[in-house]
């Protein structure tokens, strides 16, 4: 009898969640967490039941998890693997549940056999109670939204704790990040490390490097670096206890070019080397590609398909998204922490003519309620190229704070427009862009959702869940 009631509750949960997904899509709101929340409330174990039906690939870490997931997705497509993925940044437990529910039929049969899930690094520990991924990719650990997650080391330890429940999962870890690499120490799992070989890098003068992890995780001595790519990533070695960058199985041996649109690099893998073009700018995306290549290698996919996937790859939800308006265009780039922001600024420095830049800063929970990290970003780099930029716009809940930040970075105050109304800001900004030029919009997470709604209305963009 108890078993039957259990079953009935499971079906009710499934039915209600599916109904919610249907109505949310109908209303065009693209809500991705509510259906999962409802299902979890009615049948808390639903995720365990559903997760058993899939080969699960998980991606977590502070930066680049969306881009890495999209690259892996492209690799799955090239290899004709049917899969379901949580595409729209619905990376908490409720979002994962919604994703799986939308794929299973009412008879509990799944349409796909592989699930590619991007998981928030703070939600990962909880998720490990319900799902046992075949592969877990961890990108890196940077300071991010400290007020929500507590401190960086607490996040790292939560991920470590989650992994301890998953001894059969293959771990794909960033060897160049002393924090991420430590996850592979003394665990029974099979571990694949990726990283950059000592290589020549273009000089980057963006900022005093952030110091997220300059001291040894084990003995607190200051790391020495034989090679540094950016921030705390590189070939670290602790002079006191000897903790050092593990040997990487998958490496980038050489970067052939880094431009405003793409990068070309030589990848080394145990099955041979190859050159690939990564259809996204920035050194950080070379790391994301490394993670994706490691995944390909773990599953034994061919190099040709991987190369194809990296070169035809389209950017993920709002991470770096272009909208062409005939002569002019708009590019939206999500910003969420100092390291990511600095990378975007060094990208803007490579752009020939960044006509107008609009910063939209919110301080809601999903953005991080503490915006003091704006002072850890090297906007001073923008002051050097301000003669190329016709106007700076600031908007969002914290527009005024952002204006002050730009002023102290050396941007002339009469080049800064504070405009809280997104519509007006967009009109005004597009007037400052000539044909052939681009307006760059740099929003925080919830600001991106808002600005995207307006862009969607005006320029008929795709829906969130597509």
């Amino acid at each position, binding site marked *: 009898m108890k078993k039957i009631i259990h079953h009935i509750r499971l079906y009710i949960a499934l039915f209600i969640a599916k109904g919610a997904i249907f109505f949310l899509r109908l209303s065009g709101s693209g809500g991705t967490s509510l259906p999962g929340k409802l299902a979890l409330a009615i049948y808390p174990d639903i995720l365990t039941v559903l997760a058993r039906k899939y080969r699960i690939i998980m991606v977590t870490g502070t930066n680049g998890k969306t881009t890495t997931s999209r690259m892996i997705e492209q690799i799955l497509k090239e290899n004709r693997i049917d899969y379901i993925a949580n595409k729209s940044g619905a990376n908490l437990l409720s979002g994962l549940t919604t994703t799986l529910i939308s794929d299973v039929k009412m008879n509990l049969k799944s349409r796909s056999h592989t699930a590619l899930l991007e998981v928030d690094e703070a939600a990962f520990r909880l998720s490990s109670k319900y799902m046992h991924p075949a592969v877990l990719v961890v990108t890196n650990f940077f*300071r991010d939204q*400290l*007020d929500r997650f*507590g*401190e*960086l*080391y607490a996040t790292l330890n939560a991920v470590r704790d989650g992994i301890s429940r998953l001894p059969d999962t293959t771990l794909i870890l960033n060897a160049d990040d002393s924090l991420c690499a430590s996850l592979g120490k003394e665990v029974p799992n099979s571990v694949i490390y990726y990283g950059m070989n000592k290589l020549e890098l273009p000089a980057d003068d963006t900022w*005093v490097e952030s*110091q997220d992890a*300059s*001291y040894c995780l084990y003995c*607190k001595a*200051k790391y020495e670096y034989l090679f540094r790519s950016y921030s705390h990533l590189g070939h670290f070695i602790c002079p006191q206890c000897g903790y050092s960058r593990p040997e990487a199985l998958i490496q980038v041996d050489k970067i052939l070019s880094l431009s405003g649109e793409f990068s070309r690099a030589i990848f080394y893998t145990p099955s041979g080397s190859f050159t690939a073009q990564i259809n996204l700018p920035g050194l950080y995306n070379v790391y994301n590609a490394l993670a994706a290549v490691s995944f390909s290698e773990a599953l034994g996919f061919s190099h040709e398909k991987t190369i194809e996937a990296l070169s035809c790859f389209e950017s993920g939800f709002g991470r770096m998204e272009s909208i062409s308006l005939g002569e002019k265009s708009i590019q939206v780039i999500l910003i969420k922490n100092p390291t990511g922001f600095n990378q975007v600024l060094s990208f803007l420095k490579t752009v020939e003519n960044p006509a107008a830049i609009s910063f939209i800063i919110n301080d809601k929970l999903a953005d991080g*309620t*503490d*915006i*003091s*990290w*704006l*002072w*850890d970003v090297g906007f001073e780099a923008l002051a050097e190229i301000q003669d190329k930029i016709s106007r700076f716009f600031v908007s969002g809940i914290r527009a*005024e*704070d952002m*204006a*002050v*930040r730009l*002023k*102290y970075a050396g941007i002339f*105050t009469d080049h*800064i427009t*504070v405009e809280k109304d997104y519509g007006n800001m967009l009109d005004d900004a597009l007037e400052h862009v000539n044909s052939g030029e681009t307006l760059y919009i740099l929003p925080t997470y919830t600001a991106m959702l808002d600005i995207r709604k307006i862009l969607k209305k005006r320029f008929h963009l795709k829906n969130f869940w597509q």
Partner: protein
Amino acid sequence: MYQISICHLYPDLLNLYGDHGNIQALRKRMEWRGIDVSVHSVSLGEPFDPEAHDIVFIGGGQDYEQDILLNDLLNQKKEALFHAVEGETVFLCICGGYQLMGRYIKTGSGREMECLGALNHWTISGDKRLIGNLVFSVEGLKQQPDGYIVGFENHSGKTYLGEGVTPLGKVVHGFGNNGEDGYEGARYKNVYCTYSHGSLLPKNPGLADELITLALKRKYPDFVSLQPLNDSLETNARISLIKRFTRK
């Protein structure tokens, strides 16, 4: 030409919440007035010379990193820092830096970590993080006649003040020192301590100018006052937060 030297203590360890903004505000607001500014970092293993600097800044850090520097602070810099405090050098100590200036920090496991003891306050680890926007009022702040300071706090330690130390202000919105007695920060001689981290000084130019004025008066007895600046962006940022959190 007036010359001011700023010392940033442990910038590689205590740099958590946009502390750079405070240094940048001091630097820019002096440069805009034609005052010559230099900023010096003093970190682990490097000596602190109490005669060399006019303003000392200590920021916040993760607990993990505070551990590393306690040794260095107590064994290598204690006397020199005492000397500077008693000699009325201007100090701005924020969050972790604030706690380190006091007598001790009692951790969650009951361990008492000895701190500098330059000020008579102490910190006891709480089980709840005190996080959020912070508004507090300070008496007698020129240029910010309403007396309101805006910022953001994020600490689990609860700080209590002993004799000889006065609170920096009264909490209007947020938690402040301990979330209990309604006070925020500490003052002793020219030492200013607060839990308001990050862009404290850029958004509160009146406080920035007060620190600069104190430093100039101490070094140049004939110095009278700073020339005013156009602070409209700063004031807008401050006022918008006061309105949002105090309905004033």
